[in-house]
């Protein structure tokens, strides 16, 4: 078997393998950890690396060559894909799994040193791989019910991981909150799926998108789906679980949690743009000479929620003193920016600046994951070195932890959208497109971005600068595996920042096109459009 044939085979089967490899690895981990701890760590990193390789293979083919992959489980004949469980990968899916692969790989590398002193690590690694498998499943699946199953797999494993430090009361409480929130959200999503199934006798996303009529029951399903997924994505005022969960989980878990949150975000876009894509521009009501369409209505609502999200996230972040809670509220604000762009894109669907807004929003998804992830890793590194979480008890750490400080600076500049980091390019797109819709919104967005910078300057000042505190005299730089993990993300951030045109043209644009135009996604399954 030559190399070309092998890579072709791998490419054909990669959608299934991306989910199956972490799943198999997850259940092999407890057995391997009975042999040796180091072997288990190497095995888990290899599993994550193999998954990452498959992801790159698949997304290169989808994004650069423009193919849409479908993978039908259990059967070779493509004749009746409608009744089968299948994975469908277009530009948006391929874009999302890149984020997932980066985050999972970094989290696994980071865990080597970070979680070393904990017990029960075989369960930890099992759960983190399960979470990765669920996340990839959410991002790849083309079947509504399958999506629900993966959503629940992800939320169960991530809840167990949030409460991993069970000796801390608040961590357990945060885990309980998370499981309550995600279960109720998922149950309403299941109700919506059931309504759609009862109407159209199909669970396949493409078939649903093809046959949707936007009847009364479809409206109910639409609202349930949007509300449930928005809660999982952390939109104000349904964001309160997010600082608890992000702030109390171990940092290596938090970074994968970002990925799962964004998988819900992706599903929200999929529901909005693909499944209900055909009924978005249909006129709903006629008041005088003004025609109200669904995309205008929904776009306005989402933009309003997004502005509230940004403001609340930034203001709450300014007040917090817990390091990880600050970053969690900043993450909420960043999600607000994504929603702002997507709301603007929805509002101006089909026009040029609507497309630009969508591009900005999609680009900001990956930037948000990387920037906030890096900051969480830095917070974890500081916790590892000093065992402190509160900013009030930190100070002068830059003297002891040089590399961590540099990584924090990179994350700070990126998250607040300063040039030349990646956050600037995507925020520039968002500001410009929002300005064309309403200048006041753009001004608010820019002001909040400045406030975000102020928040992190405060963190930087009170944690890293200041006089040398005697208590931290013997604090050392964190171990190599954590530095490698942080360095990896920092390199990606700088790369994205230096070549924004390359990224936007090759990665972001196919994804934004896939969102704006759902006919390719549908015709791949239903045939002809």
């Amino acid at each position, binding site marked *: 078997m030559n190399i070309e044939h092998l890579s072709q085979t791998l490419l054909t089967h990669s959608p299934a393998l991306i989910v199956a490899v972490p799943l198999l690895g997850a259940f092999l981990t407890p057995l391997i950890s009975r042999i040796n701890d180091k072997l288990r760590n190497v095995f888990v990193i290899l599993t994550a690396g193999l998954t990452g390789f498959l992801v790159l293979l698949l997304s290169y083919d989808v994004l*650069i060559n423009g193919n849409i992959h479908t993978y039908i489980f259990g059967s070779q004949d493509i004749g009746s894909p409608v009744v089968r469980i299948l994975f469908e990968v277009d530009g948006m899916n391929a874009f999302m799994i890149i984020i997932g692969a980066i985050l999972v790989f970094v989290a696994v590398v980071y865990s080597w040193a970070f979680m070393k002193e904990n017990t029960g690590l075989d369960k930890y690694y099992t759960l983190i791989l399960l979470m990765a498998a669920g996340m990839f499943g959410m991002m790849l699946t083309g079947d509504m019910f399958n999506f629900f199953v993966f959503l629940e797999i992800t939320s169960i494993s991530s809840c167990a991981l949030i409460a991993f430090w069970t000796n801390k009361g608040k961590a357990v409480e945060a885990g309980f*909150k998370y499981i*309550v*929130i995600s279960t*109720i*959200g998922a149950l*309403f999503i299941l109700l919506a799926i059931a309504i759609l199934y009862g109407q159209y006798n199909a669970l396949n996303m493409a078939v649903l998108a093809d046959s949707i009529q936007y009847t009364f029951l479809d*409206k*109910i399903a639409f*609202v*349930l789906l949007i*509300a449930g997924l*928005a*809660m999982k994505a952390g939109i104000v*005022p*349904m964001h*309160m*679980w997010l600082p*608890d969960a992000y702030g109390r989980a171990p940092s290596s878990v938090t970074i994968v949690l970002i990925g799962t949150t964004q998988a819900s975000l992706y599903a929200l876009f999929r529901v909005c743009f693909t499944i209900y894509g055909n009924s978005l521009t249909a006129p709903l009501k006629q008041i005088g000479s003004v025609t109200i369409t669904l995309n205008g*209505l*929904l776009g306005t*609502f989402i933009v309003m929620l997004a502005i509230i999200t940004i403001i609340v996230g930034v*203001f*709450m972040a*300014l*007040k917090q*003193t817990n390091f990880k809670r600050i970053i969690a509220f900043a993450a909420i604000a960043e999600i607000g920016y994504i929603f702002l762009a997507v709301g603007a894109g929805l509002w101006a669907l089909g026009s*040029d*600046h609507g497309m*630009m807004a969508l591009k900005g929003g999609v680009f900001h998804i990956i930037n948000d994951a990387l920037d906030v992830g890096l900051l969480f890793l830095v917070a974890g590194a500081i916790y590892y070195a000093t065992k402190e979480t509160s*900013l*009030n008890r*930190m*100070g*002068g750490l830059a003297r002891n932890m040089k590399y961590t400080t540099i990584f924090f600076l990179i994350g700070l500049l990126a998250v607040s959208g300063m*040039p*030349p980091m990646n956050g*600037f*390019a995507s925020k*520039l797109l968002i500001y*410009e497109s929002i300005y064309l819709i309403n200048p006041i919104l753009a001004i608010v967005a820019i002001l909040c971005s400045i406030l975000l910078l*102020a928040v992190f300057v*405060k*963190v930087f*000042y*009170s*944690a890293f600068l*200041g*006089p*040398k*505190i*005697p*208590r931290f005299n013997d604090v050392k730089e964190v171990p190599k595996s954590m530095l490698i993990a942080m360095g990896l993300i920092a390199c990606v951030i700088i790369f994205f920042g*230096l*070549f*924004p*045109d*390359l990224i*936007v043209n*090759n990665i972001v644009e196919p994804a934004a096109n896939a969102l704006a135009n759902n006919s390719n996604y549908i015709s791949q399954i239903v045939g002809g459009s």
Partner: protein
Amino acid sequence: MITWESFLETFETGSGFWNPLIWITAIIVAFLIIYILRGYGKKEYKENTEQTKVFLSGNPEYEKEQMHIKGSNVYWGFTESLKWVYKTLDKMHTGNVSDYILWFVIIMGILFILVGVI
């Protein structure tokens, strides 16, 4: 396919453009100018003398840990002047799971009205 030239292209945003490579060149030039200007600085500055000691309007110097401004004291004025905002925000963030679900139901209700179910 990705070519080498595509690494250098300017990022067009519709009504504006952004090229980080040009920006970095500009920043490097600016830093060079700053470095040159720094060379013209005062020659009589010497380390480890009276000049570098902490001077607090004649008050005695506190201990190191007391000197550092704590995280919750930074931006004190900002939070103080926007107390009314923070009061409402604090009222929102109760920390009860039930309230989180209540917000979820409220948003669902608003969406129901908006989409036109009710």
